[in-house]
Structure formats: C-alpha cells, structure tokens
C-alpha cells in the first residue's frame, strides 16, 4: 500500500552481545505523528536507525519510502529523511558556523561535485528563520546552548526538505521552557510541511500530547501501540517504567503544558 511509508517486519538488531531489538514490527502511514516512548535502553534510538537505514539488521524486513533496506544501501533513502539525533558533543572550537551546519542538510541531496546555489541558501535561511535562530546564524556551532543546538539540528533536517522527520529525544536535557518550545516547533513543522514524524522520548513529562499514535517500547520489543488517550494510562506507564502508579500520576501532573 502506498500510504504506508514505513513497514518494519520483525526487525532484529544487535550490538555485539546486546540484542537491542528483538523482533519489532511497526507500520506508519503518511502524515502520522507517532510518539515512541520507553525507558533508557529500550531500543528507541536503534529503532530510528533501522528506519533511516543506519542500523544493521540481523533479521527482518524493512521498507521505508519504497526503499527496501539492506546494510550499506540507505544513502538515497536518507536524503529524504530528516534525522535529529540524540544530543551530540560538539567541539567548542570547531570551525563551522550555524548556517554552514544547516547547509549540511542540503549536501546529500545536492550530490557529489555540485555546490550549493542561491536556492539552497534560501532554503537554509528559511529553515533557520523557522526555528528562530536567525540572530545566531553566524555563530560558531560550538558556542550554542543545548536548546539552540536542538533547533539547529531541526533546521538542518528541514533543510533536506524531507518527507519524514525522525526526532531522537529532542527535549532531553533542556529546561521546561525550552522543552515546550521545541515540542511546539516540532508539531508546527509537522503540520505545515505535511511530514510523517517519529518522535522518541524517554521522558513522561515530554509526551507530545497531540500524537496520533503512541508506541510503548521496553527491552527491545514493542509493548503496545494505539491512540494516546487509550494507551497512556497511569497503569500502563507504571508497568513500562517499573514505578508505582502514584509516582507516575504525580509526575504526569507536572508535565510540560503544550498548547497547540
């Protein structure tokens, strides 16, 4: 079916002795906003790397945007997928500025031997504007705060003009204001650019309230999936995180308010 942009069938991925995904199956349709939630080590990052062809499949079939993935062949798929990785350490003296980092998003699409032209700069500047970073566009990338780095990462993904957006813990290690700003930004981008979005988080308080669907992950398997209001019960979350229901409840009361 055309509408199913991601079809993962029984994917198994392991790193050395650890098995990170133990037979995961997932289908995502065009335009969906899917939240993937689970504790640290659940395999969420690994699942995203499977979707953009960076993961090494031991078994299973993966089809994304019509590409059947085998290891080492995902380069053309990745040009169409915006990936915002988990927080990275950046050398504070790295000689590269914000605008150049966002331009990297164009490099894959441009292909070898061609240089960015005026349209590329327009696309890049528009993406920087959209994430509210225009005033810092010429700042060295190593001189940004965590929230600013996340915005740059999102701008770089948008500069690819992707069909799909993968976000790995984009709100981790941010203060609550920056968290809700990023959540709003992501939702706005998803809607205005007609994207299909996978949003990964471990943090109960950062559940994007407006997800079409949530996927609960734990210990390398998908534990449950469905509409957020059905699945995100205090009961389910308490089992997911091995925490008493009362703790879950009090945590969720303190959740970041997102008005969209």
């Amino acid at each position: 079916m055309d509408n199913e942009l991601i079809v993962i069938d029984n994917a198994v991925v392991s790193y050395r002795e650890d098995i990170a995904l133990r037979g995961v199956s997932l289908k995502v349709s065009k335009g969906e906003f899917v939240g993937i939630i689970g504790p640290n080590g659940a395999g969420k990052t690994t699942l995203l790397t499977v979707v953009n062809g960076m993961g090494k499949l031991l078994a299973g079939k993966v089809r994304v945007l019509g590409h059947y993935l085998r290891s080492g062949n995902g380069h053309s798929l990745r040009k169409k997928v915006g990936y915002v990785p988990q927080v990275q350490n950046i050398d504070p003296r790295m000689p590269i500025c914000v605008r150049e980092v966002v331009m990297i998003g164009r490099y894959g699409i441009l292909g070898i031997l061609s240089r960015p032209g005026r349209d590329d700069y327009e696309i890049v500047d528009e993406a920087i504007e959209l994430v509210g970073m225009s005033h810092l566009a010429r700042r060295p990338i190593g001189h940004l705060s965590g929230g600013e780095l996340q915005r740059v990462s999102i701008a770089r993904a948008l500069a690819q003009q992707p069909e799909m957006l993968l976000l790995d813990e984009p709100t981790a290690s941010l203060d609550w204001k920056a968290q809700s700003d990023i959540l709003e930004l992501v939702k706005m981008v998803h809607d205005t650019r007609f994207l299909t979005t996978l949003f990964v988080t471990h943090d109960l308080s950062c559940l994007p309230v407006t997800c079409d669907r949530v996927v609960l992950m734990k210990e390398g398997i998908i534990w449950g999936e469905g509409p957020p209001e059905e699945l995100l019960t205090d009961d389910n979350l308490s089992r997911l995180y091995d925490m008493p229901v009362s703790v879950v409840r009090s945590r969720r009361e303190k959740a970041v308010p997102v008005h969209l």
Partner: protein
Amino acid sequence: MDFSIFGYQFMQNAILSAFLGGIACATIGVFVVLMHMPFIGVCMSHAAFAGALLGLWLGFNPLVGAFGVSLLSAAIIGPLADRGELSPETSIGVIFSLMLGLAFLFMGLMPGTKSGALELLWGSILTNTRSDIILLGIVAFVVVALVFLFYKEIQATIFNRDTALAVGIPAAVFLYGILFLTGATITASLRSIGGLLIFSLILNPAAAAYQLTYNMKTMFLLAAAFGVLSGWVGLLFSYFFNLPSGATIVVTSSVIFLIAAIFSPKRKVKGWQSKPLQEEQP
C-alpha cells in the same frame, strides 16, 4: 648572510620540496586535528617508516613499502575509528608500538651500513632529487584537488560522521579516503622530513591554524601557509647552522604553534560566552 646558494639546484629542489610537502602535510593535518585523531596520524607515520625499512632490508623501493604498510595500518585502525569505539587509543597504541618495534627490527636485520635507514629516520630535504619532487608534487596536487572537489562532503564528515551519514553522504568512503591520503602524504614526505618527525609537520601547522579561526576554509589556508613557512624557515636554519633539516622544520612548526596558541582569540572564548548568559538573567 650569503644568499647566492639559492642559485644552486639542490637548494631550489629543497625549497620546492618544502613548499609541496608543507601544503600536503598541513592539509592532512586539518583532518587529523578536526577529526580528533592525532593517534591515527602518529601510528600511520611510524607504519610508513617501518614499511620503508622493510623495503630497504628486502631490497625493494622503500617508498612502496612505506605506502603499503601505512595503508595496512589504516585498514586496521580505520574500522576502530569508524565504529566509534569508546577508546580506540588503546588498540592504536598497541599497533603504534608494534610499528616502532618492527622498524627497529628491520634496521637491525639490515646488512651493512645503516645510512639509508638513518636518512629515513631524520630526513634530509637538502638531498631531494627530481623524482622526490615529482612524487611530492603529485601528492600535494591530489590532496588539494580532492579537498577542493569534495569540500562539502569533507566538511560534513569532519563536522560529524553520523550527521554526514544521516543526510545521505557515504561518510565511510570519505573517512577511508582521508586515511588513504594521509598514507600517501606521509610516504611522499618521508625522505624529506623523516619518519620520526613527519607527524609534527602534519599536526603543528593545522593545530596553529585551529587556534586562530572559526572558519574551516580559512583554517585550510592558514594551515597550508604555516606548513610552507615551517619548511622554508626550517630549511634556512638547517643550511646556515648545518643542522638536520627535518629537526629544524619541526621545531619551526612548533614555534609557530606556540605563537598561535598565545595569540589565540579562542582563549578568550570563556569571557565572550559568559555575556549572553548574563543577559538572560532576570
């Protein structure tokens, strides 16, 4: 001082070698510094030295040996760096010491006079021949041309290999390409600078440039300029004070680094960064 020596062929050869070697080594140095892999460079230069001695011992062209063994070491180390091992330094350290051990083993096994081996150890730019220069010229040209042609892919790979991969760039190809060029550059410069010293000429000019700019293109240009300057100033000292040229070149490049570090605007980063933070406070 008597400058009539510049009329001599051997001096002109040396000046040209220093120019070409300085550019090639410093350009490679930018990769080494920005990709945080000085250990890989050090290891490959000792591998080249060991390979050259293997050639001398067994009687084939030492430069073929140098190139072969440095690529072999890159093939072993590359995957460690590529996989993002927590501390590839340990494995690289083991290979490094193995290479040094092999180098001295081959030197010991070599019959007769060891002057050829010592020349590869210390280097002597003043005896460079036309074929040395042609090799250096080809390598310098290829290195600069590839950086020019693939600047955007190289910039992305240097910035972050996973990011480069995620936007659809085959980052592993560029990583191995960079290691390959490193091997070629070390090999071509071995006879001029020497196996023990070559890595300093790779590292120091780029490390000096790294202190001075937040722009990658500027860093490439500054590094190349410092590389050439180190070669020329070192050459003068070597000639006028009758010192080993590899050593004077390397000491010059270290002095350039020290000066750059002292005047680095990046040392003021802290003061500069604290400003916006204060503004945010209510």
